[in-house]
């Protein structure tokens, strides 16, 4: 069939610049649908994290994954309140997240913590994202390999309230001043339980966080094939 292709290709025409008019038609229909309410199938919201997954992949690829963890004879975790009001969480063992939640609540932070093996993520949206945490990034930008575009993506990701509220610093550090009342910090921490073989770098653990308003749904675990990507070792700007 390949021999037919050149003959057929001679019959086709190049897309003209005026094709942009058709995108405007679509944009108008899209805007009307937006005004009419949410999408037609909220049950499909379970796939909402498709982009979240992509973000996680992007984060891992850009060196967001945080190498960590030694020693098992210490308590499962340590919570420390710092003089500047921030709270440091060091996880030594990936168990008993409920106790971490209770201790964080005593420090005034409502949190929902899920521990997962690396290679898994929560496939559902977990809850309604706080407006200050809902960043708009066009998919074309997410897919771009242009360093300038990637920098802009990082800038927007860093502009999210959750990026200011939960940072990969000395383990995980939480800054309560960036958490508005009524928000729950939804934290998903992925651990790579495989023994390091010392031969090649690998992602030891990584986390994702967001701020949710209202009830938080239980995590529905799905595969995350991007989790083990070491990436191009380019850290996000400012890190």
């Amino acid at each position: 069939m390949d021999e037919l292709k050149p003959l057929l290709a001679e019959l086709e025409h190049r897309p003209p610049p005026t094709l942009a008019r058709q995108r405007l038609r679509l944009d108008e229909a899209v805007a009307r649908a937006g005004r009419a309410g949410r999408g037609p199938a909220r049950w499909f919201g379970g796939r909402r994290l498709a982009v979240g997954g992509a973000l996680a992949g992007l984060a891992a690829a850009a060196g967001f994954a945080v190498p960590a963890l030694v020693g098992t004879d210490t308590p499962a975790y340590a919570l420390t309140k710092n003089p500047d009001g921030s709270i440091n969480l060091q996880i030594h063992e990936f168990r008993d997240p409920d106790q971490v939640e209770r201790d964080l609540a005593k420090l005034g932070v409502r949190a929902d913590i899920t521990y997962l093996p690396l290679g898994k993520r929560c496939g559902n949206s977990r809850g309604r994202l706080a407006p200050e945490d809902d960043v708009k990034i066009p998919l074309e930008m997410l897919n771009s390999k242009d360093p300038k575009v990637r920098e802009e993506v990082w800038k927007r990701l860093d502009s999210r309230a959750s990026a200011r509220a939960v940072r990969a610093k000395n383990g995980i550090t939480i800054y309560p001043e960036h958490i508005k009342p009524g928000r729950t910090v939804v934290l998903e921490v992925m651990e790579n339980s495989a023994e390091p073989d010392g031969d090649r770098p690998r992602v030891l653990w990584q986390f994702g966080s967001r701020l949710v308003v209202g009830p938080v749904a239980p995590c529905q675990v799905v595969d995350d094939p991007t989790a083990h990507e070491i990436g191009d070792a380019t850290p996000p700007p400012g890190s």
Partner: protein
Amino acid sequence: MVAGETLPAVDDADIIAESLEHPERFSALFDRHAGTIYRYVSLRLGPEIAEDLVGDTFLIAFRRRGSYDADFRDARPWLLGIATRLITRHRRREVGRYRALERRAADAQVEGPEETITRNLAAASSRAALLRALSRLSRGDRDVLLLVAWSDMTYEQAAHALGIPVGTVKSRLNRARRKVREALGGINPLQEDSDG
């Protein structure tokens, strides 16, 4: 659809799923595939009405996104299927286009060294024969042939695009191939076992 092609981190099915809650995200699908749909429609109907049909295709796709089968991560077969059904409404225009192009190919004047003339005449001749064959194919056979030959779709994708069983795709394709082969006579650019 090309073997070995790397899918982007966020694939079409993700965009469509996202657009259920965030309709504005659907426009990303236009940015990805409008060019392909335009080339396909312009091949069959010419450039005059192709733009409008591309717009119609995406409007229909947007309205139907709730029933999209997420097993198909690449949305091109789905979009090309919608475009194909729109093209069907312009059957007369399509056949008229092939006939007009066939006449033009048959009347082609070629100049230059003898070798070039011979080659160009052969190309014009096979082009005219192909156009004649396309204008004579049944609508269903033509749909399958053009989708599979032009866009590199698999049988399964073509079946999905046209909403017909895979077996029907195969039988239509075989028939269409045979007819085009006959029309092309000795030129036979479709012979699969050809060693080139």
